[in-house]
């Protein structure tokens, strides 16, 4: 496997032009040569460098998962579907205002609000849904701004561009909410911090979202525009399995689309993604199978443990044990995503030794290649 860092030309050749870009945003924001426009990363000019941070940080270029895991979590990359776990439970916000605005239990929003309040962070980088119902990045300095970001847009958005835009001198203590691929890019940025921009030393809290796949920004938005009155939309939801639908809330009215139809708009690159539970963050949050209004929470780091302890102490979260069956299913689903991704990659490269961007141990590779997978995988 080639591990050399390359430049922007190769980033476009190997990732973007091949449809592998995840829209994490690691390659844009402070680089004058690349921009995000209408769902695509575009090259305005060729920067002509043989090596660049864009290539280095991209989650779809060579990624040594053991190295990242060792450095951030203190253990090698976990073979288990849900990664390294310090604690796992279900939770929801005690604040009904948060719950009513949030996607499920409002755990993410609650933790960000708490971190702002107790000074752990003073800025949260989030993805909020704009008036046009498109995702956009937000650097929230206030509780009100964090509240505005509550709720999920299922369209991918390159939120890390907001990280790249933070001035080098900034002393902001940051919290961030990311999807799994964004978490990988963020991890790569933290491992080899750029010298020319903010080094992320001040990153104090990273919250990951569970993710099976994300929807294509451009194509799915067209679909929405043609099928619902966007002005009325106040929430999107993919209820946990076995619902198998995509709900668009418009006040009292809910319009449901079969998930199979919506899947047509997911990003092709998600098929090659190993991670369902955002393994390289402090805390990962998702839904709970069969339990409405609650979140599954996986704590992975000491920082994560600390803020959860705070939340308990201050009475911000209701916390319960996750039913065994839910945990088992979550693990199965996550492992299924991992194994399917590796098998899809091999199908694409046509070579069992060519895993594109992924660098994992041989053992794990063999295990994942041998795993029986279900074709679709839930969401």
């Amino acid at each position: 496997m080639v591990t050399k860092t390359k430049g922007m030309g190769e980033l476009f050749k190997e990732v973007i032009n091949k449809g592998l870009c995840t829209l994490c945003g690691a390659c844009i924001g402070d680089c004058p040569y690349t921009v995000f426009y209408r769902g695509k990363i575009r090259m305005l000019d060729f920067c002509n460098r043989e090596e660049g941070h864009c290539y280095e940080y991209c989650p779809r270029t060579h990624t040594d998962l053991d190295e990242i895991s060792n450095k951030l979590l203190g253990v090698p990359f976990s073979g288990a579907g849900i990664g390294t776990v310090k604690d796992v439970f279900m939770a929801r916000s005690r604040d009904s205002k948060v719950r009513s605005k949030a996607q499920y239990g409002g755990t993410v929003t609650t933790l960000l609000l708490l971190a702002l309040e107790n000074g752990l962070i003073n800025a949260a980088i989030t993805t909020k849904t704009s008036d046009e119902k498109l995702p956009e990045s937000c650097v929230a300095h206030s509780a009100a701004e964090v509240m505005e970001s509550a709720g999920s847009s299922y369209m991918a958005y390159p939120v890390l561009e907001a990280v790249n835009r933070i001035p080098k001198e900034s002393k902001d203590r940051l919290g961030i909410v990311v999807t799994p691929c964004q978490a990988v890019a963020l991890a790569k940025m933290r491992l080899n911090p750029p010298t020319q921009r903010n080094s992320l030393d001040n990153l104090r809290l990273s919250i990951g979202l569970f993710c099976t796949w994300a929807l294509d920004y451009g194509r799915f938005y067209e679909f929405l525009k043609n099928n619902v009155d966007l002005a009325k939309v106040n929430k999107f939801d993919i209820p946990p399995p076995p619902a198998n639908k995509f709900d668009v809330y418009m006040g009292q009215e809910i319009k449901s689309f079969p998930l199979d139809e919506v899947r047509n708009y997911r990003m092709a690159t998600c098929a090659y993604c190993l991670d369902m539970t955002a393994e390289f963050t402090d805390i990962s949050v998702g839904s709970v199978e069969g339990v409405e209004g609650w979140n599954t929470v996986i704590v992975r780091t000491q920082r994560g443990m600390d803020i959860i302890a705070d939340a308990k102490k201050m009475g911000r979260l209701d916390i319960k044990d996750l039913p065994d069956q839910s945990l088992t299913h979550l693990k199965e689903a996550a492992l299924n995503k991992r194994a399917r991704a590796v098998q899809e990659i091999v199908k694409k490269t046509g070579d069992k030794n060519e895993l594109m961007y992924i660098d994992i141990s041989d053992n794990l590779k063999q295990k994942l290649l041998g795993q029986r997978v279900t074709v679709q995988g839930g969401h």
Partner: protein
Amino acid sequence: MSNIDIDAPGSNQLFIGNEAMARGALEAGVGWASAYPGTPSSEILSSLAEVAKKRDIYVEWSVNEKVAIEAGAAASFAGLRSLVAMKMNGLNVVIDFLSTIILSGIGKKGLVLMVGDDPAAHSSSNETDSRPVSKWLDIPLVEPGDFQEAKDMMPYLYDISEEFGTICILRSVTRVAHARGNIRLGEIPKVVHKARFEQYYDPAAPMPTPIMCIPSSFRHMFQHVRIDKIREKFETSPYNKYVGPEKPDLLIVTAGSGWLYSQDAVNALKAEDRIGILKLGTLWPLPEKLVKSCLSKADKVLFIEETDPFLEGVIMEFAAGFSPESKRNLFYGNHTRHLNSFGELTPDAVIKAITGVLDIKYQPRDAEYMKKVESVPQQYVMDRLLTFCPGCPHRASFWAIKDALAMDGRHGFVTGDIGCYTMALGPAGFFQTRTHQCMGAGAGLANGFGQLRRFGFDQPVVSVVGDSTFYHSIIPALVNGVHNHSDFTLVILDNGATAMTGFQPHPGTGLTAMGEPAQQISMENICRAIGARVEVCDPFDLKNTTRTMLDLIEQKEGARVAIMRRTCELVRQKKEEKPYKMKIDPEKCLGEDCGCNRLCTRVFRCPGLIWDPVAGKTKIDEVICNECGVCADICPEGAITKEAVA
């Protein structure tokens, strides 16, 4: 610019060729001059414009060559000597009118068309030789061999034009038009110009008729009769001459710039006693008797001509009709590959041609010497990129166009046109321009590309034109686009000047050639009246211009227009102080690091910015920078700052 009006008959003055021709027109008593600017012809009209009021003549920059010649013909119809000037590209535009005025004939007073050719295409899209048009359309054509002739041929040609009632062409080339030489002045007559259209004047018609080209076949025959009569006249023209021995080993036949080159070559070869030169000033109709008598002097004949082998063709064709008893010459020239049929003549090329025909030894300087000669000026002249001036709005416009096309991502492209912005074929305009033809062609091509959606074509098409070009030849293309639902974006770079040819006014500038105020013809009103969506933006506002471009490109169908308006930097300078004081903070400048890699000096490349390889930072070249402020918005690090000058 010299004063072509100086009242000193008999004195010698230093004029460039174009000024000599303008002076010649004054000495011929012209009352009208119209033109469209184009190198190498522009100075004829601009120098006449300077004296127009004093001499009580009318001078105009016309919107294009076709209007220029038609308007000029009207002056002739109404009894004024009339001069129309253009470059060879313009000649192509006026062919249609020429093809009828040779049939109708002119008015009572002479009509001369001056065409400036540009061999080697120094400042042109092509190097077409205009001379063949004379044979093709039956138009008398003369060409000066030196500066004096450039002046003297004007009155001569007006006399011919009037005597025979036909339009005549004076052809010149860049090296005559733009070089400076001594000429002896003649007198400028005091003419009181009086215009009136005599409706029943027509020397060709047996009875009074309108000035018209029909019955065409009959008039065609008449033009041939006319041409034969002029041929007779040309036999004794003072502009044709033979120099050399009575029985030379070689006869050179030449004209125009070839005349001086041929004399130099014969001199250099010290072959005056072996080579004779027939220099023709009246090229068409060919003075056949003169030519035949000269051909009989020598066995070998060599044609020395710039670009096309015109005389070579017509003379060989003429000689092919000689009776068997006549002398049979051996002809050399382009057809024997002794000379090229492209590019400019050089003394070396002429010498090489001669020594290729005659066994004369010539020791040219060695290659080392040539290298030395070439290196001398390089010590004094900086090696510079062919680019827009510092502070030029075009650089900003193309930056915005580039960004918009890249962001759109459908591999859109620019169809180019003729003006300074032609440089956008290269790094000056970030290689955005992908086609380059003649004036107006970019918009025509865009019309075509924009119709190909039905065949799967999905790229955005952007036609970029200048303001002068817009009035010259874009309007019909836009009408066509709107009418036929073509899908393209027209960008008009409105810098308020015909910058490439020397800042001639045009219909949008609110000034005439004679310096009088004129109604400013609004291009946005024209475009809107045609039915196109029009957006006006300031290219120095890069963000907004890019956004506007994107919005236009993304429009689903129809011809739409962006007017990028900003005064040409060279015009602004004459009127205003520099708007900003530019500074670079070396601490912030990233230089060659990731995150910039010299975006300003490597991609943007305004000559006002220089890369200091030692410091690894960009610097402002304070002498060259025009402090426009655009680079401050390019720099991703905010290292370049602009401070408004109070």
